[in-house]
């Protein structure tokens, strides 16, 4: 086994991890704030990839898609929260869970009807189709570098939003105690709405970014949803840093196992999850006190 093979696989793992990070961040923020276990998250990821196909066919410009897709699907998320999930608040966690579970299937079926059951090709954007060749270390595809950089920038931006701005203070406060925020004059329904939209937008962006790396088909969100849940559990429900660390960890573990024991790569993340939960039952960065 040569060094450049290991490096290449490690790099693939980090790029894969970046997609997991984006996906689990949305999942985690929605759960942490709204207490909603969002089973439609994988479907939002998938619709993100398809919206990318659509916008790309319309404009032929990947950069427009990069902005338009999270906005489009994020707006769809706003509608879902406002009209489907909001009426279920205060009825227990299983109501929104069942609703989003069903919604996921509806979205998959709608995409099958509109775009067919076969997969769709998704070309790597021309500007990012090359790669970086580092002598003695290996070849790094530009698109994967872009996905990693984009994820890092987004996570940093999100961290600044949450920890350094008043909006972030409102979100953190409302995640812990929505009632006291409403008593202090904050319309918490609006906060919930925007957070759900943000989470769905992130899922859609993850789907779009993953499209050139993984295949685009109506079922692409099904497996990835499980992966995102695993990442969220490993990182600790509701923890931003936990999701970032765990996403990278899972991506690397999966792709490294694929190198040494390909037949084990599918279950390696579950083994990792079991191991983490044995040592830290609330996940790596979970406090366990967030659940109301």
């Amino acid at each position, binding site marked *: 086994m040569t060094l450049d093979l290991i490096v290449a696989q490690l790099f693939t793992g980090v790029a894969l991890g970046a997609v997991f990070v984006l996906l689990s961040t949305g999942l985690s923020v929605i759960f942490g704030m709204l207490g909603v276990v969002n089973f439609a998250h994988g479907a939002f990821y998938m619709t993100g990839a398809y919206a990318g196909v659509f916008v790309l066919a319309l404009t032929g410009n990947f950069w427009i898609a990069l902005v338009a897709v999270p906005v489009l699907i994020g707006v769809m998320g706003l509608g879902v929260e406002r009209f489907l999930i909001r009426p279920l608040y*205060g009825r227990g966690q299983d109501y929104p869970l069942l609703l989003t579970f069903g919604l996921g299937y509806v979205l998959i079926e709608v995409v099958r009807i509109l775009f067919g059951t076969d997969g769709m090709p998704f070309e790597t954007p021309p500007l990012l189709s090359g790669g970086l060749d580092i002598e003695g270390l290996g070849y790094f595809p530009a698109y994967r570098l872009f996905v990693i950089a984009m994820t890092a920038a987004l996570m940093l931006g999100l961290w600044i939003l949450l920890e350094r701005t008043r909006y972030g*203070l409102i979100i953190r*406060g409302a995640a812990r105690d929505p009632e*006291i925020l409403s*008593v*202090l004059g*904050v*319309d918490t329904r609006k906060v919930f709405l925007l957070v759900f939209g943000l989470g769905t937008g992130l899922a859609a962006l993850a789907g779009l970014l993953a499209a050139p790396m993984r295949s685009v088909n109506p079922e692409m969100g099904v497996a990835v949803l499980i992966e995102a849940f695993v990442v969220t559990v490993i990182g600790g429900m509701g923890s931003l840093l936990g999701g970032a660390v765990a996403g990278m960890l899972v991506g690397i573990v999966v792709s490294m196992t694929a190198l040494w024991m390909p037949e084990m790569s599918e279950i390696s993340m579950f083994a990792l999850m079991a191991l983490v939960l044995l040592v830290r039952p609330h996940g790596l960065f979970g406090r366990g006190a967030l659940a109301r």
Partner: protein
Amino acid sequence: MPMCAASISAKGGPAVADPLLEVRDLNAWYGPAHVLQGVSLAVGPGEIVALVGRNGAGKTTTVRSIMGLIPKRSGSVRFDCADLSARPTHERFGRGLGYVPEDRRIVPGLTVRENLVLGLLAARLGKAAEAQAIEAVAQRFPRLGERLGQEAITMSGGEQQMLAIARAMLSNPKMILLDEPSEGIMPALVDEMADLFLDLKRGGTSLLLIEQNVELALEISDRAYVLDQGRLVHDGSSADLLADPTIRDRYCAV
């Protein structure tokens, strides 16, 4: 002082000519349990009014209903010339109705400063004005001022209570509903709190005060309502209630 053109005339009801807060025929339910049964009360501008009664009499439910926090309720709430009966909680705050809940509700994970900033969010101040307002709190409550960067839930119960009251005061509300502010607090701090309430009154802020400590409540309040099993059983001046122990012994003994 506001004169409400559309104020409901007080026919056999609250003995306040021009109330800031006027609650009429408030009913509230927890599931099938009818816990508030037709409570009417009023608080005038700059008045301290005590709401006393046994545990479970419905005091907390009354103020939570006034804030719109009980889902199943009926009756009307007028505040500062506006009918708030159907308005959401955050709008009631926006009208100048502050509330310090029984369990203080200091937000965990946030510092003392961040908890205070929560009280200023609705005011939408600039950074400078916000810092100025926090500085004023630090001056008035030195114990909070020393701990601005500390995680708020690590403070003592009394300090947390001061923080909860300071947070509610920051937006200069016209009225504050206080639920058991002296509960579990050392006596020296209770005196400090009583002074603070009298200060607020002098500044024109009305208070509706729920207290287990009936003596304290009657000493600093102008008038009092006595609640028993979800109904008002007595109202009158606090001085009279303080002088006549029969009603207190009947309805307020713990």
